[in-house]
């Protein structure tokens, strides 16, 4: 069964550094999403992406964040200058264009900012 994959599984970085989290959505999916889950808290929506542009974003998704689909398979989340409070699990999700109601999630990338 096709799956959303994410790399790396764990990223450790210094405060102020840039990080790029990578996702490979399911191949025939066209809607892409990023969520984050701070340890012990609920999953929070960050951004959705369709047709090479942002569809919706939450108030968390400020100017420090950006998303990109650099090629036909990858979907990336960039954090320009990481803060301690960016430490979280980041999940990528995707949906099929004919079934946009169901989002399929990847295993997540744990980001630790020191």
């Amino acid at each position, binding site marked *: 069964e096709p799956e*959303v994959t994410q790399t790396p599984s764990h990223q450790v970085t210094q405060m102020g550094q840039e990080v790029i989290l990578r996702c490979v959505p399911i191949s025939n999916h066209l*809607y892409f*999403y990023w*969520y984050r889950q701070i340890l012990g*808290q*609920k*999953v*929070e*929506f*960050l*951004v*959705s*992406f*369709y047709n090479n542009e942002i*569809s*919706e974003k*939450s108030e968390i998704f400020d100017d420090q964040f950006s998303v990109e689909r650099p090629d036909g398979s990858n979907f990336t989340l960039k954090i320009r200058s990481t803060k301690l409070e960016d430490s979280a699990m980041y*999940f990528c*999700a995707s*949906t099929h264009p004919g079934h*946009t*109601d*169901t*989002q*399929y*999630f*990847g*295993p*997540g990338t744990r980001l630790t900012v020191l």
Partner: protein
Amino acid sequence: AQSVAQPEDQVNVAEGNPLTVKCTYSVSGNPYLFWYVQYPNRGLQFLLKYITGDNLVKGSYGFEAEFNKSQTSFHLKKPSALVSDSALYFCAVRHYGGGADGLTFGKGTHLIIQP
């Protein structure tokens, strides 16, 4: 704004007994409702959804959920719990016709099945 409430941080059930994990929601218009399960150090796995139609929906691993519009609830149920059902369960909502809208999640409920 839409929101989801999962009133129980933890639910303990003996193996073989029925289980219920509670969820209530608030959304403008008709809701899309979902249950996801998260095992330790794993991502979110889709369990089931309510979009329209029958109020009782069936999903993976023997789980089902009942949509109750008047009570704005979408409780997750299973007739006979297994130890392997122990995990963190999230209820989520999105408003109908939202296209690429993000999901709003509850805070999660730890389900512990005791042998």
